[in-house]
């Protein structure tokens, strides 16, 4: 059997990405001593992480690089390596559909993230009240997570159908002035998407925030009660600020999800009416497959990547700066 060498693992796990942890050091849990005891390279570990290496380099360096490269070409279906400068980007930003997509994702993103956070926290707060039916309610709030976004989109499309859905039902029950079919009007279609998005995601947000709430020291609640601080203020001004980690998690998950949005658009609106609910990811795929213009799609995709890279760099710099500040104090 292959006997690995003495490259022991780190003691305290770095919860952030591994980039900042020192490599090859020996640090037992709790010990502050770090000795270099590495003698040979652990062959087995290297073999075991070959998939990791292939993927990280192949997909995330090579793949992204290729995409960026193609965005400067005229590739339609099969790779064409001749560079044509910024032609695709010029075309991209002069296309109304793309502009709409960018505008839409901002509106949808901000609305749905806020709605999700508020509704999710409200649910978490109410679920924290020691109700007898907590398990049942949690099951109800979370099950949308288990549903495919295609299913979600289809279902909500029917519920919002003016002839058969909620609107029709309300009419039959007598409320003839009731109208809730946002998907049929180009101006309101986005809001219908927000509703479906919140329906899908609020349960997860609630679960994460509830876990965060339960992590707040019990004595804080007692102290607030003795101080005479009403419950809602405690939840909003004391507990929530203490839950930065959970809130950050929710925001990160939401942002990632919003940027990728595709399935639900396809099933719920088909990017319509017209192009009213076009989104960047849909644009990319459309040009990639239907319109057989891969380069244009790559340009769009690269444009999508840009904000992500910028944010990550900003976060990385922020962390680095904060760490240095602590060290010099």
């Amino acid at each position, binding site marked *: 059997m292959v006997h690995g060498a003495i490259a022991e693992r780190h003691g305290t796990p770095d919860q952030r990405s591994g980039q900042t942890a020192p490599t090859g050091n020996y640090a037992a849990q709790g010990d502050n001593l770090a000795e270099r005891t590495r003698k040979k390279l652990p062959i087995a570990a290297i073999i075991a992480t070959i998939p990791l290496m292939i993927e990280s380099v192949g997909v995330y360096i090579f793949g992204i690089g290729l995409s960026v490269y193609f965005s400067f070409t005229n590739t339609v279906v099969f790779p064409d390596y001749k560079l044509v400068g910024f032609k695709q980007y010029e075309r991209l930003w002069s296309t109304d559909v793309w502009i709409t997509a960018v505008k839409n994702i901002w509106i949808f993103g901000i609305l749905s993230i806020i709605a999700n956070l508020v509704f999710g926290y409200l649910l978490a707060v109410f679920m924290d009240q020691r109700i007898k039916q907590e398990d049942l309610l949690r099951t109800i709030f979370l099950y949308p997570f288990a549903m495919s976004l295609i299913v979600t989109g289809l279902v909500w499309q029917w519920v919002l159908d003016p002839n058969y859905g909620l609107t029709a039902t309300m009419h039959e029950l007598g409320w003839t002035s009731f109208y809730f079919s946002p998907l049929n009007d180009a101006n309101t279609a986005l809001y219908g998407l927000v509703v479906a998005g919140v329906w899908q995601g609020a349960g997860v947000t609630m679960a994460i925030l509830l876990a965060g709430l339960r992590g707040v020291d019990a004595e804080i609640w007692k*102290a607030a009660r003795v101080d005479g601080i009403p419950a809602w203020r405690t939840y909003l001004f004391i507990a929530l600020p203490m839950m930065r980690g959970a809130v950050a998690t929710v925001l990160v998950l939401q942002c990632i999800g919003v940027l990728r949005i595709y399935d639900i658009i396809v099933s719920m609106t088909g990017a319509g009416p017209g192009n009213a609910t076009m989104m960047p990811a849909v644009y990319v795929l459309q040009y990639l497959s239907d319109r057989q213009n891969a380069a244009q799609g790559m340009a769009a995709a690269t444009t999508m990547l840009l904000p992500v890279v910028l944010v990550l760099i900003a976060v990385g710099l922020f962390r680095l700066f904060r760490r240095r500040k602590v060290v010099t104090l």
Partner: protein
Amino acid sequence: MAQVQVRDLDISFGALKVLEKLNVTAEDGEFLVLLGPSGCGKSTLLNAIAGLLDINGGQIFIGGKNVTWEEPKDRGIGMVFQSYALYPTMTVEKNLSFGLQVAGVKKDEIRSRVGRAAEILQIEPFLKRKPANLSGGQRQRVAIGRALVRDVEVFLFDEPLSNLDAKLRGELRVEIKRLHQRLKNTVIYVTHDQIEAMTLADRIAIMRNGVIQQLDTPHIIYNKPQNLFVAGFIGSPSMNLLRGQLTTVAGKRVFSAGGLSMPLDRYEFTSGAPDAAPAVLGIRPEHVAIGDDATKMPFAVEGEIEVVEPMGSDTVAWTKVAGQSFTFRCESEVQLHVGQKLKIGFDPARGSLFHEETTNRL
């Protein structure tokens, strides 16, 4: 008047009865300590007085007012917690003023109260800091300050020093005592540390399994424990307990164990004590004399030293009396070694006699 009175308190968690028909009173200005091992119900009692726990029966009076159904904020109490429970995202100043602000107290009043508390507790330099930037001792002072600004008559402390290291504990203990002397408010203080209890309390209520074993001044509890549990709980090293027989010989009561006979003629018996019973005699290690001093004692015997524990300030030695383990304390200058034979003596009247079966004081 800031008397705290608990009447016939019943608290159960599901089927588990934690407190049953418990009665205790803290007089105005008194420093009452609730002392006991984990799970004895002392924290439960404190939380019930604070109004943080639902009770199943009984009444609670604070300052003469029946507060059994009142919210904690309306009970006229301030509370200090084991983990300080300071609001971590607020500065010290905000921590102190938040409750007042919510209650609608005027800004000037808030400022003056916060200033007064900060001056008393010497936390003025930290007012703008956040709790994460304070040491443990400083945090605890802020926690006390939060109770102080509420301008209340009754303070409740829930094991406030348990999270601190020994040295800090000693320092803060003195500060708490000084504070009490200055403010003269009623304090109910929960701890499992007998030293804290002995040094701080006007009276101690020792609890076990939800029942108050003894409610007395530290002096009485130390010298006249009411049962075996109290005797063993207070005092470090713990009281020596010799098992034997209480008998009456020629009209005089005597304690016999292992063939030895110890006179009890000057011992203060409780009324109704029997003439004969299986008993346990308790003698504190610090009340034992050795060598020449031992012969002056009403009872003396020779013993052989088995273990010596030098503590620095004094020395504790282990030996056997009547075949049972026996410790005594002496000055650290005294030379002792294992195997040494010397005279050990004590005055049984200064000890405590307990009935072996009922464990009560005789």
